[in-house]
């Protein structure tokens, strides 16, 4: 078997185009223009975005020059390190009582993530209540109730079209009465450029702040890993409007790499907190920067 056949076989194993590109990039002999071009292509294909990609490559060039690195394989480790540093944040431990609010555009998987979170906290021995704050989408509350049943968690819901802030208020009252540790708040999907819907979200936050001023209140933005550069715009506007604490990156079990979190991190320093990797109830796992980048590179 000659060298080309070997390469071809290696590529067959790594199914997607992205790995192919990286394979080519890192099997180059020297750190030449072609190497950097291939690398750029790989990063862009993973949705890292043009600005973040150019910055990363610039940093890599400088680093390799300073440390006299000549071999592509060594450069890969440098790049990996650079990327991990970019998205590695210390996320403070939860304190209880805890309120977690999930927001995001339509169809990113908020309701599913709520179900998975409920299961996770239940497993940790916490008592959980869910507020069905998506009163807009048809049958959203029913969907959440199925998740509540699976996780064995109470769901507080109103009828369709009700004020979501009122649902949250009721959930808080109920949690107070029963002494629950965790309140999970689902919200309706909204495109971030719709001002009145963003105001509704702010109202929900005000209710939580007023009714539970001492609670640990986390606001997570749910992002679909298949989303491209628009995710930056989503993160920006959601964090401007409700001061987002972190990101839950869903649907990482597909072929999308979710590289856009690097672009988001560069601009907003927003940490990823959890990643969704499947359809089952325990398929939501805490984010690990090293694992994430290793999967990406």
């Amino acid at each position, binding site marked *: 078997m000659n060298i080309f056949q070997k390469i071809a076989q290696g590529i067959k194993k790594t199914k*997607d*185009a992205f790995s192919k590109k990286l394979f080519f990039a890192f099997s180059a002999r020297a750190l030449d223009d072609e190497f950097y071009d291939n690398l750029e*292509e790989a990063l*862009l*294909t*993973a*949705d890292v*975005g*043009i*600005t973040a990609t150019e910055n990363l490559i610039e940093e890599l060039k400088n680093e390799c020059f300073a440390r006299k690195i000549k071999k592509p394989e060594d450069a890969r480790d440098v790049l990996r390190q650079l990327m991990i540093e970019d998205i590695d944040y210390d996320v403070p431990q939860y304190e209880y009582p805890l309120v977690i609010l999930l927001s995001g*555009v*339509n*169809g*990113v*998987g908020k309701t599913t993530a709520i179900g998975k979170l409920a299961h996770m906290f239940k497993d940790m021995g916490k008592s959980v209540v869910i507020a069905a704050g998506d009163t*807009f*989408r*048809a*049958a*959203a509350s*029913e*969907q959440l*109730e*199925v*998740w509540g049943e699976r996780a064995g968690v109470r769901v507080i819901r109103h009828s*369709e079209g009700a004020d979501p802030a009122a649902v949250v208020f009721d959930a808080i009252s109920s949690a107070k009465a029963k002494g629950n540790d965790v309140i999970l708040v689902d919200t309706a999907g909204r*495109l*971030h*450029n*719709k*001002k*009145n819907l963003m105001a509704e979200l702010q109202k929900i936050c005000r209710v939580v702040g007023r009714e539970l001023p001492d609670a640990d209140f986390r606001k997570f933005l749910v992002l*679909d890993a*298949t*989303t*491209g*550069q*628009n*995710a*930056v*715009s989503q993160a*920006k*506007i959601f964090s*401007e409007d409700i001061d987002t604490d972190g990101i839950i990156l869903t*649907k990482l*079990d*597909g*072929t*999308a*790499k979710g590289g*856009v979190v690097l*672009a988001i991190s560069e*601009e907003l320093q927003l940490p990823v907190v959890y990643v969704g990797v499947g*359809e089952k109830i325990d398929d939501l796992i805490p984010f690990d920067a090293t694992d994430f980048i290793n999967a990406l590179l």
Partner: protein
Amino acid sequence: MALFESLSDRMNHIFSKLRNKGKLTELEIKQAMREIRVALLEADVNYNVVKDFTAKVSEKALGEDILKSLTPAQQIVKIVNDELVALMGSTHQKLAVSDRPPTVYMMCGLQGAGKTTMCGKLAVYLKKQGKKVLLAAGDIYRPAAIQQLKVVAKNAQTECFEMGQIDPVKIAKGAIDYALKNGYDTVILDTAGRLHIDEKLMDELVRVKKEIKPTEILLVVDSMTGQDAVTVADTFNKTLDVTGVIMTKLDGDTRGGAALSIKAVTGKPIKFSGTGEKPEDLEPFHPERMASRILGMGDVLTLIEKAQNAFSQEEALKMQKKLKENSFTLEDYLDQLNNMKKMGNINDMMSMIPGLAGKMKGNVQIDEKQLAHTKAIILSMTPQERRNPDIIKASRRKRIARGSGTSIQEVNQLLKQFDMMKEMMSRMQRGGLRGLKGLKGLF
């Protein structure tokens, strides 16, 4: 993000230095291509598509003697635009109708793309064309998906066929039998969202396809999808041989480069785009408009079409006359506000105006509620006041504020705005569209 407002601006910037020389070098063309590349990548057009595209445009640009052209920036933008349109298919493609009823449209796509919502929109659209539409609930996995389709069907005032959570092949067959027996000529089959790499679930779709032979298989794609859009669309297309694509969530601020990638990779036409939360928010897909959107140049054509739908020819003529005579009154303003409502969301409209699109993002938002207040204030005036606002002095202002449940300040503001508007309109009479620059302050 939002580094550039429109490709036009960027091109202008590159070429502005050279205006006096009147001639471009190859280096400058190269620079221009770099900008085009960045613009397309920021719009999420797939890397390989961008590569092919810039190569093609570059060739064209050199071939067409841009170097001698007087306005090279415009010329390059035009070439880019034309090529984009050509790539996306030059005209709108209609849905196929089966000559043996029922016509069956099968929806497919990833989770959260918006299939179920799209079923409802499509039903409303087809009903308007006189079709009798049955929705069929084939998503047997997602909790409450069937329930959601039922509500969607109710809102679309049509029926939803369901058999619970059994094999989707049986549901599809059952739906067609039911349609034949009950006089439905169109069936829209909702299916569960699935990952393109989930072989078991993809196989389920293949089985459904084999059994019912749908008239069209429509792939529903979130327009915010990034580079992965090609992988997804390509796999769905190879497995199912889809007949068309529907882009959803185009009412966001995404540039929607995915549309271009998908067309380039699959060669399948994009037939519709979903543009809002309401059941009627569905538009036939127009490649030339998408091209402007990807390039961040606004969507004047859609704006004009919406205006044409909302304003009758007669009204427009009447308005033109009034503008000429400068006899525009608050009554006319009220008519205008009502007409604008017919055109849809004001913010969406503003985003279609070229040049304004980039500038407004995030910071200038027009509150629809504000418009309701404005209307209330005008409605609290006497006809005489509306025709001649100059007579509205302190005590009248007080009465109007009370009548409309607003404050005197708000009444004052409206009157001031109205003056500004009149001023601007007379400026537009003289200076054409340039007068529009002050538009933002109006609402």
